[in-house]
């Protein structure tokens, strides 16, 4: 009935190879990617090493390493149109900070970034020409990356762009229409962002909701650049977006922050930071009691650390705020309290009921576990007072 795994793999490999052949024909311009690598001081060896890391990040078997390397070379030719809507440009900045590992940034930077209004040279009409040229020349072949949500109230006029003052909504429709793939990055594009929080005065919506499309989403405030690189590479390798769960690529959002947390042992042992700067904080104890939303948040911050893998919020002693989850500003607030203490009024009316119910169940579960762990710890000498206070919060 079932194919052998080796047969499946062979199928996948040949599919991948023919996809890469096809792409090389589609984007014939040579960008001198290898020279760029040399120029940037990246040896062939470290490039291959990077390919190996990327293969495992994408949960692909090692035979894919060479194909990932080849895909990266092709990536430097695929035209990208990067659009900004209602946003703060933090996602673009995150792209600039990408250095994990070094070559990722090179690929992103030398993806043919044909339209990106934070870095491009021309303004006004000349910038609009760049957009039109790319859309015409690469119709159906460019990747469209969307940063920011789309205001929909007042006919979308809370955002108007370009010499003809089209609304953000109109521009998004026009550009995504002929894209080979649309990727929504950051919390705003994925879920609406802070401006879509209760009571959402501008009617801001995520890209998928506003346009009625089904783009892959890379949430986070901002997202981790490795997740974007991985998604683009996967698209190039297989001609489709990676496996997703609720629209998010599983390779990046398959695990909870809690599951990969460097402080997890302290959670299990019932050792908590009770107040900022206390003895527990000095020792690096669990941040659940000061509001960490890691147990309800799917993201890779603990695996692919931030800023050259040098840090993560939890490492720096602040709990996760749940920034890759829908409506986290409403559902996870107040951010310095464990999730059971949620008090913001009026949120329920806008909340995604299914999502909220799930969070609710897992929150109760976490609370019980935290209490139980804490009780165990008490027997190891944590003060009674501390425990009572905790019980009150429960």
């Amino acid at each position, binding site marked *: 009935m079932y194919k052998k795994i080796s047969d499946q793999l062979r199928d996948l490999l040949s599919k991948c190879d023919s996809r890469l052949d096809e792409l090389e024909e589609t984007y014939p*311009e040579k960008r001198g990617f290898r*020279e760029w690598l040399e*120029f940037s001081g990246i040896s062939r060896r470290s490039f291959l090493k990077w390919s190996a890391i990327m293969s495992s990040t994408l949960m692909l078997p090692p035979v894919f390493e060479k194909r990932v390397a080849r895909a990266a070379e092709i990536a430097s030719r695929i035209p990208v149109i990067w659009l*900004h809507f209602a*946003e*703060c*440009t*933090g996602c673009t*900045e*995150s792209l*600039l*900070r990408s250095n994990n590992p070094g070559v990722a940034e090179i690929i992103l*930077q030398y993806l043919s*970034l*044909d339209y*990106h*209004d*934070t*870095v491009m*040279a*021309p*303004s*006004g009409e*000349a910038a609009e020409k760049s957009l039109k*040229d790319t859309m015409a020349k690469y119709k159906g072949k460019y990747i469209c990356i969307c940063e920011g949500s789309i205001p929909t109230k007042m006919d979308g*006029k*809370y955002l*108007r*762009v370009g*010499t*003809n*003052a089209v609304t953000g909504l109109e521009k998004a429709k026009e550009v995504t229409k002929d894209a080979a793939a649309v990727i929504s990055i950051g919390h705003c594009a994925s879920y609406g962002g*802070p*401006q879509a929080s*209760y*009571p959402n*005065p*501008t009617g*801001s919506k995520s890209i998928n909701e506003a346009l009625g499309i089904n783009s892959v989403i890379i949430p986070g405030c*901002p997202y981790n650049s490795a997740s974007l690189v991985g998604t683009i590479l996967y698209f190039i390798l297989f001609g489709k977006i990676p496996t997703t769960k609720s629209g998010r690529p599983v390779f990046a959002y398959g695990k909870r922050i809690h599951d990969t947390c460097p402080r997890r042992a302290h959670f299990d042992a019932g050792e908590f930071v009770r*107040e*900022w*700067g*206390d003895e527990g904080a*000095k020792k690096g104890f669990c941040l659940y009691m000061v509001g960490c939303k890691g147990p309800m948040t799917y993201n890779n911050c603990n695996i692919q650390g*931030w*800023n050259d893998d*040098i*840090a*993560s919020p939890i*490492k*720096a*002693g*602040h709990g996760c705020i749940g920034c890759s989850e829908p409506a986290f*500003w409403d559902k996870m*607030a*107040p*951010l*310095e309290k464990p999730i059971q203490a949620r008090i913001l009024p*009026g949120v329920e009316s806008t909340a995604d009921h299914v999502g909220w119910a799930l969070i609710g169940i897992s929150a109760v579960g976490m609370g019980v576990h935290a209490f139980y762990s804490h009780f165990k710890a008490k027997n190891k000498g944590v003060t009674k007072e501390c425990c009572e206070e905790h019980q009150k919060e429960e």
Partner: protein
Amino acid sequence: MAKRTVIDPITRIEGHLRVEVEVEGGKVKEALSSGTLFRGFEIILKGRDPRDAGLFTQRICGVCTHVHYDASIHAVENAIKIVPPKNGRLVRNLIKAAQYIQDHIIHFYILHGLDWVDITKVLQADPKKAEELAYSAGSTYNAGRARFAEVKKKVENLVKSGQLGPFANGYWGHSAYKVPPEAVLLIVSHYLDALEVQRYGGQIMAILGGKEPHTQGLVVGGVTCVKDLLDPKRIGDVLFRFRKLKEFVDTAYLPDLLLAGQVYKDYGVQNVGAGHKNYLSYGDFRLSDDADRSNLFFPSGVILNGDLSKVHKFDPEKITEHVKHSWYKYADESKGLHPKDGVTEPNYTGLNADNTCKENEKYSWVKAPRYDNKPMEVGPLSRVLVAYASGNKEVKALVDYALKTLNAPASALFGTLGRTAARCIETKWLADTAEKWVGELVENLKSNDETFTKYSMPKEAMGYGLIEAPRGALGHWVSIENYKIKNYQCIVPSTWNFSPKDALGQRGACEQSLIGNPCVNKDQPLEVLRTVHSFDPCLACAIHIVRR
């Protein structure tokens, strides 16, 4: 207004900005700046926990990604009348210093550089001569003929490929580009280095603040990174990166700025883009642990009409905001309101039939803040001028050195070139100082590892946080009722600089700076962009409009 040139989108900035200019005889006769996005953070903040305001308002802007966080935490601390312990103050100063250095480097090379250098001139450059130039100018960072030859080859390959990416359709070949080919090659080479180096700033912020963009390590009362502070390796990581940044500032940013400054000296001497010459600095980087704002690294003060002989004392009560020409409604729009009494009621009245701004009516989502009813410029130039006029020795030495190199008088600082130069001068000033602050932190940690001041949230309180962001004076005002946010308000740097006209008909700082600005080719408004970019616009900030 006669036939207008509409520049929208203004690229290489944060946010959505439109500028409309009327050009006559190669000069700008009339100018309008309009913010074209509204997000409505004010309404959203109502009823939230004041402790969450920092992380929320931080999302106003992802470029100067830390400063709203900082200002908000200050405002709440001011309301509940606490200050963080010394370690907290020093860590906050270090994170902010890293933010400044990183942000200014990105601005000069990546956002602003292409206004001054024509990248295609690299093709005519001789790498050997570029090397000689680099060494004579002291711009020695990663400099050498081999490196320059590589950079040149890369640009050649890019041009040959026909896929210019973000460089396509630039105003290449424009007559206003004056930098000679070898200097262009040097600066383009440092453009590439800047992309690498700026990350060190982000890494410092991440070590002390969890991640960047959008740091996550401040809390009302202190900072959270105590475990890292007690780890000598982490302190070393911070120190090492500040040194890397300083090296780049000393051997690339400052000499490159002076090199370009010599070419464009006329911009300074003729005061191109000077505008109102009113400069405002709130002052920032606290140097002591008391609650008042008297001992500051960047001094506070006001300079009026370009008179450097007098620095007026800054009084926060004199700030008001107008909406006569902004898409909001006041009961009486003939005068401004103080931010603590501010009102935000959107009132969008649209554009003309030809999609241009209605210059006599409302035309922007940016409000018009005024100080003592005068339009003010904020930002690096204001800070440097206030410090210079106040007699700050370090700044005086740096400014005098720059002026001597350019062979120009102090008045040459007023305007587009001065704005760009001041940004570099303050970067150098901070890069020189940061290491000292790391030392102070280490010294203090030897005897004191406190990072948090305990407090209880009052039921009702009001407070404000006035700081300096890389782009200029930033203020947050908060009022708390029943432990929740009742009203929250900000006036941010780009609200000052990119404000439309006020009820008295006075133009905003950038609008005024554009009057008389050269523009030889209306279809390629390069000189206009130079002046606009010299303010380092940040429009998402300007139009967060956080009101009750």
